[in-house]
C-alpha cells in the first residue's frame, strides 16, 4: 500500500516536471526546493521535539504577558489589549517557526571549503540556496507551524482574524519578511570569507534578531528614543510587520506603508548581497587545499 502511494507520488512529481519542460531554470529551482523538503524527512524526530518546544515557548510568553498586563498599566501606553498581546505572542512565535531557515549551511560550506562543490556547478548559488531554504521552510510549515497553530486555536484563547484582507497582507508581508531574513542570514554567512572565527558575529545576529525583530517584545514597548533607530535596521520587517499586520494591530492603510519599506529593504539587501558575493568570489580561498 505504502509502496503504491509512494509510486503514485513519484508519478505525480514526474508529470508536474514534464509540464514544466521548456522552463529549465524554473525546473531546477523547484527541484532544489522539492529535494530539500525530502531531505528533511530524514530527521523526523527533530520536528516532533520542535513542536513541543514551540508550544512551550508560546505557553511561557503568553503567561508572562498576562501577568504583566494584570499587574501594570502597560496596556494603555502600548495600544495592546490583553487579548491583543496574547494573540501577538502566539502568532509571532508561529510566524517565526514558519520562517525557519538553515542559517548555518552557507557559512559551514565556506568554512569547510565544500563551497567549491557549488562553484563547479552551472548555477547561481544565491538562487539555489534560497530555493533550498524555501523547500526546508515548507517542511517546517507542515511539521511544526501547522500543528502548533492547531493546538493554539484549540487550547489557547486566540482566534484567527475574520477579514480576508488580513490574510492577503500576511501573504505579502510574510514573503517580504522571509526574503529580508534570508538575505540577512546570507550577508552574515559571507563574513566567513573574510574572518575565520565567525561565532561572535553569529551571536550578534541572534541578539539583534531576538531583540529587534519583534519576535518576543513588540516594538510598541520600546522606549521612544530607540524606536526610530530600530526603523533603520531590517529586523523589525521580518517578524513584527507580518505579525502586527495579521492580528490587526497595524491597520490596512499603515500596512501599505510598511510594505513599501519592506520592498525597499528587499531591493537594498538584494543589491548588497550580489555585490558582496561578487567580492567574496575574488577573495575565496578554499580551506584544506
Amino acid at each position, binding site marked *: 500500500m505504502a509502496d503504491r502511494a509512494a509510486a503514485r507520488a513519484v508519478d505525480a512529481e514526474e508529470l508536474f516536471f514534464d509540464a514544466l519542460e521548456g522552463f529549465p531554470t524554473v525546473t*531546477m529551482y523547484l527541484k532544489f526546493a522539492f529535494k530539500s523538503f525530502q*531531505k528533511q524527512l530524514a530527521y523526523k524526530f527533530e520536528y516532533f521535539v520542535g513542536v513541543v518546544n514551540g508550544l512551550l515557548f508560546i505557553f511561557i510568553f503568553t503567561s508572562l504577558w498576562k501577568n504583566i498586563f494584570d499587574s501594570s498599566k502597560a496596556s494603555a501606553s502600548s495600544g495592546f489589549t490583553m487579548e491583543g498581546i496574547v494573540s501577538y505572542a502566539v502568532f509571532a512565535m508561529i510566524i517565526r517557526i514558519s520562517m525557519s531557515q538553515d542559517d548555518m549551511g552557507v557559512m559551514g560550506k565556506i568554512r569547510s571549503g565544500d563551497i567549491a562543490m557549488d562553484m*563547479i556547478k*552551472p548555477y547561481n548559488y544565491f538562487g539555489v540556496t534560497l530555493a533550498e531554504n524555501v523547500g526546508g521552510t515548507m517542511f517546517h510549515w507542515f511539521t511544526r507551524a501547522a500543528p502548533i497553530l492547531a493546538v493554539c486555536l484549540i487550547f489557547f484563547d486566540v482566534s484567527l482574524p475574520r477579514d480576508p484582507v488580513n490574510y492577503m497582507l500576511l501573504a505579502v508581508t510574510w514573503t517580504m519578511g522571509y526574503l529580508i531574513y534570508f538575505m540577512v542570514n546570507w550577508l552574515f554567512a559571507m563574513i566567513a570569507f573574510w574572518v575565520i572565527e565567525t561565532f561572535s558575529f553569529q551571536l550578534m545576529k541572534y541578539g539583534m534578531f531576538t531583540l529587534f525583530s519583534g519576535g518576543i517584545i513588540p516594538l510598541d514597548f520600546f522606549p521612544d528614543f530607540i524606536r526610530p533607530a530600530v526603523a533603520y535596521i531590517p529586523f523589525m520587517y521580518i517578524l513584527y510587520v507580518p505579525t502586527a499586520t495579521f492580528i490587526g494591530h497595524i491597520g490596512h492603510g499603515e500596512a501599505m506603508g510598511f510594505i513599501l519599506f519592506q520592498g525597499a529593504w528587499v531591493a537594498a539587501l538584494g543589491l548588497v548581497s550580489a555585490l558582496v558575493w561578487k567580492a567574496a568570489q575574488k577573495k575565496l*580561498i578554499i580551506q584544506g587545499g
Partner: protein
Amino acid sequence: MNDDVLIRCQDLRREFTVAEGRAGLLGSIKSLFSTKSSVIRAVDDVSFDIRAGEFVGYVGENGAGKSTTIKMLTGILTPTGGRAVVNGTVPYLERVKNAFNIGVVFGQRSQLWWDLPVADSLDLLRAIYRVPPARYRQNLAELSKWLELGPLMKMPVRKLSLGQRMRADLAASLLHGPKVMFLDEPTIGLDIIAKDNVRRFLKKINKEQGVTIILTTHDMDDIEALCDRIIIIDKGKIAWDGATNRLKSQHMNGKILEVEFHDYNPDISGAIGLTEMKTEANKKWLRYQGDGGAALNDVISALFRDYCVKDLSIHEPKVGDVVKAIYEHGVDHMEAADHG
C-alpha cells in the same frame, strides 16, 4: 589557438596573502593591532597546452600548486596573473558557461547530496545541467552499467562506502557528457579493488568517449597505469612536462639496486656504474644505468667484493621513483645522472 588545443594556460599565476601569526601570548596581542602578512605564490607562471583526448597526470607534492591550478581551470579561483582558456571559455570570467562543459571530481569532497538517495542526486544534476531526457536515459544507462550503480541508486549517500561513493561521484560528474574532466585525487583512500575499478573506468571513458582528463594524484601507480603525459609541478613551477613514455625512456632505463649493508653505510662513490638515489640507516638505493658501462653482474660482484653486503634486491624503476627524484633534485640532476 590551434583547434586541437582544449586547455591552454599562459603564465598562470596565483598568489595568496597569508597572515603571519606571532608566537606566544605577547605575540598574539601584538597581532591584534598589526597583522604582518606575506605573499605566497602558489602557482608561478605556469604554461601548458592540453589537446583534446589527452590523459594528463598533473603531479606534485603537497602544496606544490596542483589543486590551485585545477581550481583556476574549474572557475573556483581567479588567477592573480596570466590567462587560462578551457574549451574556448575563460573559466573564472564565465564560471557558469565553463561549468556546463566540464566534469569535476574532488576525491575528498562529494558533489552528491548527503541525505538523498543517489538516484535523487542524479535527478537533481539532470535539472542543473539541463540534460534532455533521452540523452539522460542513455548516459545514465551506460554509466550505470560501467560503474555498477544499480544497487546504489536507492541508498542515501551518507550510507555508501568510500568506493561506492566514488563510483556515484564519477557518474555525477559525467552525466552531462562533459568534454573535459578534472580529477583531484579520485583514488584517495580506496582499497585495491575499488582503485582498479576506477582506473579501468577512467581509461575507458578516455579511450572510448574521447574525454580529455586531467588527473592529480599522489598515487604514482595511477599515473603509470593511466596517463599518456605527465606534468610535474614543484613549488608552483613546472619541473617537467612530457609524454610518460619519454620520462620512462629518459630516466627509467637500467635498474634500481636496493642494498642492505651489514652494520654500516659506506661511501660508495668509488663503485663503478652506480648512482646513489637514497640512503637510510644501513640501506642504500642505487641506480644502475647500464648504457655502455659495466655489465650488471660485474657491478654486483664488485659490490659484494668491496663492501660487506647483507642483502641485495633488484627492482625495475617506477615512474614514482623518477618523479620523487625530480621533486628532490630537479630535472638537471636527473639529466646529469643519465649522461654521466
